[in-house]
Structures are given as C-alpha cells and as structure tokens.
C-alpha cells in the first residue's frame, strides 16, 4: 500500500520548512489539458515579452469624494496575448495598491512576505478585475489610523515587480477629497 508520506504530495524542504510543494502553483489545471501551456510560454517567450503582454488600468467612479468617505476603485489587468503568460513577481504578493506611494495607505509594513519569488498567471486573453476601497485613512502605526485631510491623492496599483511603472505594469489615478 502506498503511503501518503511516500508520495510527493506532502514534500517539504528541510532547509525552509514552510516552503510548500513547488509544483502547486505551476501545475494547476490548464486551458489545454494535454500540454502545460504556461510552462511552454515560460520556455518560448522571454520575460520581457510576457511583461509587455500584460497591462494594468485603475479607475474610480468619481474624481471627488467628501473627506471621510470611502473611495472605491477598480483595477483591471489584461493579458493581450492569445496564450497564457506568467509574470514572475518579487514575492508571493502578486500586486499591490498604494495611496501617495504608501502601500495600502499604510506608513508601516502591512505584510511580511517571504523573500521567495511568486508568479502571477494569466490565461489567454484574460481580464482580471479587482475592486478595492480606500477608506480615506492612513495607517500611521501598527494600531493607529489618521484621517486624510482635504486635498488630491494619487491611488496607484501595479504588479509586484521591479520597475513596474517602466514596464507598463503600473497605473495610477487621482482623487480629490473635499470638505462637505
């Protein structure tokens, strides 16, 4: 009888005990089941072409919001190639949003991702849409938030890759908070 621990299903790296099986992300079901298209795209297309294929757009329903109101925004990412592509990311955090350059409107780190690379996978021609809200506050410490005053703020979103803006993997928009 084959035991579960004899299979590779629970394999973990003794050097980094929290490194899960490497195959999980890359071996997920593919559009073409008879060939691993994302692996093929990694082999055939250089990283530059894969990043070129993906675009990021961000938008808000309005340009002005009252101070204290939540600001909804939508991020749309698109793979314009007719094949799946995988964009390597700097960490398992695949993308981030910022307000005036502060990740998730926080002056303190909001997550502590490991130093391992991640991969953001897009199916052929896939649109990914994410709806987020900025609550009009800045996190100033681990336990405290402050309200943003009236003024213009830049909300940005981009893939977690080095020089995302230069590679076209980042977009931003501005909103104005006004007193009611």
């Amino acid at each position, binding site marked *: 009888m084959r035991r579960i621990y004899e299979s590779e299903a629970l394999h973990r790296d003794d050097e980094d005990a929290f490194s899960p099986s490497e195959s999980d992300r890359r071996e997920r079901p593919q559009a073409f089941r008879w060939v691993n298209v994302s692996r093929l795209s990694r082999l055939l297309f250089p990283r530059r072409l894969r990043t070129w294929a993906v675009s990021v757009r961000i938008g808000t329903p309005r340009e002005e919001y009252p101070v204290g109101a939540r600001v909804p925004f939508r991020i749309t990412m698109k793979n314009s190639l007719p094949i799946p592509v995988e964009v390597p990311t700097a960490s398992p955090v*695949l993308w981030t949003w910022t307000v005036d350059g502060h990740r998730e409107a926080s002056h303190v780190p909001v997550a*502590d*991702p490991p130093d391992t690379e991640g991969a953001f996978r897009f199916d052929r021609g896939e649109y990914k849409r994410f709806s987020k*809200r900025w609550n009009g506050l800045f996190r100033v410490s681990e336990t405290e938030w402050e309200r943003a005053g009236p003024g213009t703020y830049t909300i940005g979103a981009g893939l977690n890759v080095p020089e995302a803006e230069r590679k076209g993997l980042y977009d931003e928009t501005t909103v104005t908070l006004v007193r009611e």
Partner: protein
Amino acid sequence: MALLEVENLTVEFYTEDGVVTAADGLSYQIERGEKFGVVGESGAGKSVTALSLMRLIDSPGRITSGEIRFKGENVLEMTEPEVRSIRGNEMAMVFQDAQTALNPVYTVGEQVAEAVRHHLGYDDEEARARTIRLLDTVGIPDAEARYSDYPHEFSGGMQQRAVIAMALSCEPDLLICDEPTTALDVTIEAKILDLIEELADEFDTAVQLITHDLGVIAQVCDRVMVMYAGKPVEKAPVEELYYDPKHPYTVGLMSSIPRVGDTRSRLQTIPGTMPDLVELPPGCSFHPRCPYAEEACTLEEPPLLDPETGEPVGTDPSVEHSAACLEYTGVLTEGLTYEIDVVGETDEPLTRRAEGN
C-alpha cells in the same frame, strides 16, 4: 512550562485578491490535561490556527512569524521528519469533516492501524488488535467486524468516531479537535463530546477544541479564546466568559444562543458579517458591527487588555481574563451598556443569557 505555547503567531495567505491574514499575532498557552476552547464565526481563523500547530499550512499560506513551542521545542524550527514524528503521535488532530478526512479506498481499520504501526512500531497483528480496542472504546459496535469496513459503510457519527480513534491511537499529549461535531446531529454531538471528555480525562490529554458553538465550549472547556477576524478578542476561564463577558463580540455570541422558554419572537443576531480578511476595517475589526462603537474605535486597534487595569496583557499568562476593547482604556465616552440577564440556576452556564441594549 506549559505543554503548548503559541506566541505572536501570524499566518498569511497570498491570493490574487491580496494578502489574507488568517491569524494575526495570536498568543496562548495550553497546560497538560487542560481543555482549551477556541470559538468564533466561520472565517475567524480558528482552523488555520489549528493547522499551523501541526505545520499543515500549505500553499499559498505561510506562517510568517511567531513561535509554537510544544513541550518547550519550537515546532517551526523542526525538520520535516521531526514534525512527522510528533504529528499524529504526541500531537493529533480530529478534523472537521470526517468523511473528507478518511481515505475512501482504505478500510477504516487500516487507516487507524497505520498510525499505530508507524508511530508505535507495532506489527500488523498487534496494530490490528489495538485498533479494534480503540474502535470499541470510541463506541463503534462490533468493532472487529467493522475493522474491515470502508468509510462509506460508516454513518457520519461513526466516521467521526473513527477519526477520533485515529487521533487517540498513539495516546497524544495534545488533541486538536477542529469542530468535531459540526456535521453531526445533536444526540451524536453530545455523545462525541462526552467521549472526548472521557478519553481526555482517561489519557490526561490536553484538548484544543475549536468550535463556533458556545454551548459546546461551556460543556467541555476550562478556558476559552474568542477569535474575530484572525485575532483574539477575549480570553477567559469558561465560567468568567459566560458570567462576565467583556467584549461586545462575546456578548453578541452569547445573546444569539437560543434558549428554551425564551419569549423573544426572533433570535438576536450580530448584524453584518465577518469582514473580508483581505480588507480589514481600520481600528477595531469588530467596530462596523459593534453597537457600542465610537469614533475612537475606527482609528485605534486595541490589544488584549486587562479589564481591571486597562493595561495590555501581552503574553503574560498570569492575567486570566483579557479583552481587546477600548472601553478598558477609558477612551469610550458612552461605555458598554449591555446587561447580563441571569436565568435559572446560577451554577449552570448554559442558562445564562447576555443582552445588548
């Protein structure tokens, strides 16, 4: 030294939608033979906490910080063979859904015997005999004949008992029960809980019981941790939690317990739902649902505080009752105005009811 010491445990899941912080800075201890309850709504991070103890968090989840010391050794620094030697042996788990936990293509007896052979070094015959005794202990009728049955031939209650037998097979020092009775009807639930209590007393096993049912906690546990949105909001001995809840969320959970003889036409609920863990509200995570929330609650997140002194308790085990509410820092102007309405005998926690104003 406590049997299990969890300190500042943080578990994050990296999803396409963002980072889900399923457990955020959790700290607690479990003594030998103690029954410790973890309670909260679905999505509060209870199961993730349990899986972390066994180091069973898989991709895309990561334990990003903290320490889990079992018998003084940090589980997070052990090699995989070391963890495998304690998993199912010294630390065992009763999984939430027994039907899923059991392998459908192996007989129930074989699945229990496998752990016995692997950890205790028994040969096939000895393992079979021990497994039959275990199945008998957990109340499987005609255990010898049922040894060779497949999981689909067992009822839900029997499957759950088989999973409990598997967890107890190596007489663990810590038994983690992740909602062991959620899928069962109330009569079987009562039997299973009695069984866990009896067996825990018999083997002097510490139990971490995870549930969203405060009635179950009242029946089984000595101490309780109430979780909300991946964080502990109240920790207390079970009697104190029922007689003197300090956090509005705990009060909300109490008031939603149905009670025989209650004249209310509708059950009281906590309005709203658990927040999205990718996008937690600022300040106290419970403030959007809290009837006592004030402006300060939206801007400041309270740590676990000693309700008497208002001082943060940190990881100090000497403070038995703590709650994460700004009320105890003196910041709230209106205060918490709920009343505890005691009904029936005072020595019966389940007959107590908390009502918010």
